């Protein structure tokens, strides 16, 4: 309640101003009266129809502004009547008909010359009932959104002011004030108007480039809304739209809901509504209701002056601008320097002198004392100057060296937001010589997807002792993507409030290009190796497809024969067809497996169940295992954690390990050609796969096995294990080969479980 006196003060000011204006108006009135009584006794009648009742400040403000303007500018006398349609509370159709009949009766003796509607719901009302109330009377509407205007389809002699409450720009304002915000909370009620907001807000938020973690507090019961608002985290942006009706159908005044939300919310609250301003919200991109009222009055004046209303186009947003409440800014520690330049700041407090002149006096005397010290310090200054010259020279040398190395140096004060950077940074970020080197201009050149990372990394460095490194993409004017590495380090003894940051920008475009090329080549080699393994397996795989084809052919021929019978057994035929479908699916699966292995493409990471992958690999190798007389035993752990990776590449690794195991047993007696594959969750949390053969084991040159082009096989390329270990390392795992005590070799593949990867992040 701390801001109450000030808001009283505000209203008092307004009231005072109003009184003053009234005085002047009375004078004008007096003159006008004399003038008009002499000229002609014509009296214009304006009927203002408020959509809701007297409790809605928005329509009241529009009405007051319009009234003032009409009285100010009208040549003749204007009689203004007003009625409240109360469309929000009584929503039965009978109410509308009753109201229309009542208005016709009420104004039958003095029909209005112009009808003005205030509030969105009044437009469809007047479109529907004008003929019943006052046929052919021109209408000027206000408080109508573009969507509402389009859906109401008013006839051409209805014109007015269309207001687009600008959520987009309100969000822009919020993000400028809270660059570190991570969440967005949107609040709206459940009336038809509220629901229009819900839809629009969702669309706007989804189309925004910057994605915040968003919560929609839409259509909630009032008490639920209040309890949720109180729990909003500090790093959120809260936007309150309208709550005309809550989730249980209870009517509310949106401004009052906004006031409560602003009082309770731990995070700053914004809104695109004029009336909320002064009630605790920070502000937004706002249309003032006064300007809407004045603009509507201007239209009415033109109509009164005899202009055909059909020639007057509706006006959109006569006076939108960024508006903020200084008190709310201070409450949430938002910085004035972050505001857009054309922002109107309301409720700014009186100057320092006015408020605390005694304090200022004390400060001034302290200042005087300080000047004495300064005098003493001046003596020291000469000495310092000499040191400074040396320092400057050294700095120039360093800057030159850095530029030569294609490195930019920077220093940043988090408190003041000031950035110092070497001129070479311009070249790195493609900034022209006339653009100032600031945090914002540099950030604007960083690829939007990398901006959040860059900011987060620098913040990270400000919290921790160690330096932080991020690589970001920079779009220079030549349209080519350049990579810049940002290194940041904090300079503070006080870790919580590291305000001085410094670091370097280095152009690493060439390094990135080389890395990308190497990755591409690794992919190509991996693909070639898959193709070559599958080439070796081609006979076996053909057999795998041949099996279902054989079954299909036999079944189909059986069915054909069955159908030549006099009374074919259709049940049997159905079974046959079912078998054909099953077998066809089986063939399809083999083809699918093959195709995915043959496919060339980028790594695609997904959740991988290693047991499934082992089973699928054994299925693929089935025929090869049989023809090589190798027996496979799979001992797979139940409830094995899943891992994260590219299933095709991981299957390639498994395939290679199985092929190696089979190759190793070429001279093993047939009865002993056994491969045992285990899967298990290691104690470290990793997922392990062991492939154990009964071959000759590994010879002494163990460490050369992973070397490229080294092979122990006669026909081997010497790339299998090299590619495997590259793949596995890219998955954050490792692969080892050892001799088993019982003879033969064991290949152990270890991959991090998905949970570990999540935890590591």
């Amino acid at each position, binding site marked *: 309640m701390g801001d109450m006196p000030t808001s009283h003060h505000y209203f008092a000011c307004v009231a005072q101003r109003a009184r003053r204006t009234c005085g002047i108006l009375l004078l004008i009135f007096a003159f006008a009266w004399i003038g008009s009584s002499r000229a002609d006794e014509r009296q214009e009648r304006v009927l203002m129809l408020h959509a809701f009742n007297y409790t809605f400040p928005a329509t009241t403000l529009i009405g007051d502004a319009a009234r003032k303007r009409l009285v100010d500018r009208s040549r003749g006398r204007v009689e203004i009547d007003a009625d409240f349609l109360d469309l929000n509370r009584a929503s039965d159709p009978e109410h509308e008909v009753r109201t229309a009949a009542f208005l016709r009766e009420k104004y039958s003796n003095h029909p209005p010359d112009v009808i003005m509607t205030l509030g969105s719901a009044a437009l469809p009302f007047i479109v529907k009932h004008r003929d019943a109330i006052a046929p052919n009377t021109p209408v000027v509407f206000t408080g109508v959104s573009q969507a509402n205007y389009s859906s109401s389809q008013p006839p051409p002699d209805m014109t007015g002011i269309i207001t687009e409450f600008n959520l987009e720009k309100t969000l822009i304002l919020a993000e400028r004030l809270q660059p570190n915000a991570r969440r967005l909370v949107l609040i709206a009620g459940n009336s038809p108007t509220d629901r229009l907001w819900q839809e629009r807000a969702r669309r706007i938020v989804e189309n925004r480039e910057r994605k915040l973690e968003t919560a929609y507090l839409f259509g909630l019961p009032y008490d639920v809304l209040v309890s949720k608002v109180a729990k909003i985290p500090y790093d959120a942006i809260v936007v309150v739209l309208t709550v005309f009706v809550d989730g249980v159908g209870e009517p509310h005044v949106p401004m009052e809901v906004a006031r409560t939300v602003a009082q309770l919310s731990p995070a700053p609250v914004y809104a695109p509504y004029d009336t909320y301003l002064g009630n605790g919200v920070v502000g937004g991109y706002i249309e003032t209701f006064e300007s809407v009222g004045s603009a509507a009055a201007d239209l009415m004046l033109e109509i009164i002056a005899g202009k055909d209303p059909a020639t007057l186009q509706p006006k959109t947003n006569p006076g939108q601008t960024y508006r903020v409440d200084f008190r709310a800014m201070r409450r949430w520690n938002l910085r004035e320097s972050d505001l857009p330049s054309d922002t109107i700041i309301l409720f700014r407090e009186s100057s320092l002198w006015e408020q605390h002149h005694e304090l200022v006096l004390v400060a001034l005397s302290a200042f005087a004392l300080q000047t004495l010290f300064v005098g003493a310090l001046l003596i020291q200054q000469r000495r310092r100057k000499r040191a400074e010259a040396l320092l400057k020279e050294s700095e120039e040398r360093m800057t030159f060296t850095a530029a030569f190395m294609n490195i930019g140096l920077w220093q940043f004060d988090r408190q003041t937001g000031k950035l110092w950077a070497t001129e070479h940074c311009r070249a790195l970020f493609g900034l022209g010589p006339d653009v100032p080197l600031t945090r914002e201009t540099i950030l604007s050149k960083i690829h939007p997807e990398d901006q959040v990372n860059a900011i987060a990394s620098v913040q990270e460095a400000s919290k921790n002792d160690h330096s932080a490194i991020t690589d970001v993409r920079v779009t220079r004017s030549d349209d080519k993507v350049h990579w810049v590495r940002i290194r940041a380090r904090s300079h503070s003894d006080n870790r919580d409030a590291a305000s001085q940051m410094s670091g370097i920008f280095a152009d690493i475009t060439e390094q990135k290009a080389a890395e990308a090329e190497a990755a591409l080549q690794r992919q190509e080699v991996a693909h070639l190796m898959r193709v070559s393994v599958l080439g070796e397996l081609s006979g076996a795989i053909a057999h795998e497809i041949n099996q*279902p*084809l054989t079954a299909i052919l036999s079944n189909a021929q059986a069915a054909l024969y069955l159908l030549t019978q006099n009374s074919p057994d259709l049940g049997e035929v159905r079974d046959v067809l079912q078998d054909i479908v099953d077998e066809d699916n089986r063939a399809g699966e083999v083809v699918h497996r093959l195709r995915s292995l043959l496919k060339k493409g980028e790594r695609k990471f997904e959740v991988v169940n290693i047991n499934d992958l082992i089973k699928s690999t054994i299925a693929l190798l089935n025929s090869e295992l049989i023809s090589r007389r190798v027996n496979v035993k799979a001992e797979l752990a139940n409830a094995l954690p899943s891992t994260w990776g590219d299933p095709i590449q991981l299957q390639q690794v498994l395939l290679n390990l199985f092929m190696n195991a089979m190759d190793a047993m070429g001279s093993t007696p047939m009865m002993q050609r056994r491969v045992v594959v285990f899967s298990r969750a290691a104690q470290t949390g990793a997922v392990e796969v062991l492939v154990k053969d009964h071959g000759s084991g590994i010879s002494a040159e163990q460490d050369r096995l992973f070397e490229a082009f080294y092979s122990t096989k006669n026909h081997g390329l010497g790339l299998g294990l090299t590619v495997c270990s590259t793949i596995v390392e890219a998955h954050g795992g490792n692969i080892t080969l050892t001799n088993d005590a019982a003879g033969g070799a064991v290949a152990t593949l270890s991959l991090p479980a998905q949970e570990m990867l999540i935890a590591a992040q």
Partner: protein
Amino acid sequence: MFTVFIVDDDAGVLRGLSRLLRTRGYDIQSYTSPQEFLAQHDSALPGCALLDVSMPGLDGLELQRTLTAEGIHRPVIFITGKGDIPTSVRAMRGGAIDFLTKPVSDKNLLGAIARAEEEDTKSRQIHAELAAIQAKITALTPREREVLTHVVAGRLNKQIAGDLGTVEKTIKVHRSRMMEKLGVRTVADLVRMAQKVGISR
């Protein structure tokens, strides 16, 4: 009734082949492993074996050899997914009726089975005949069997009597009883019969 014993480790193929042949009126006994087949197979049933070449454990060719070694004269048809020449040559040398490649058309399969049926009938007739002869020979007394061997060897009654240390008259009695038991009238018939069961000089 003619039974086709199908052995294939692939359940789908086994079902397809079984169904195809069952609709054509054959009795089917199907096995997913050679071991199962060997354990349950009834060699007395007329029929043929349809064997997959490539199976885990014991392949089709080995199964064929095992059958031969155990004296089971079951006509064998091979069916294979990868029909290479060396394998087919080995199979045919081992006495296979046919060596068919998957996927196999009903025409080829039924043709091979028809030939197997013919072969099986023939071999069963021969076996039946031999068995009958064997049974008759078993019914002879040891002395009569001795006389039989000597007669087949072309010895005269007098020579046989000398060899066996008895008189010609006794040999004559044995000989006529033996001929009667074996159901042959002439020495030529006797020799032909003896050849069939492998009795010779």
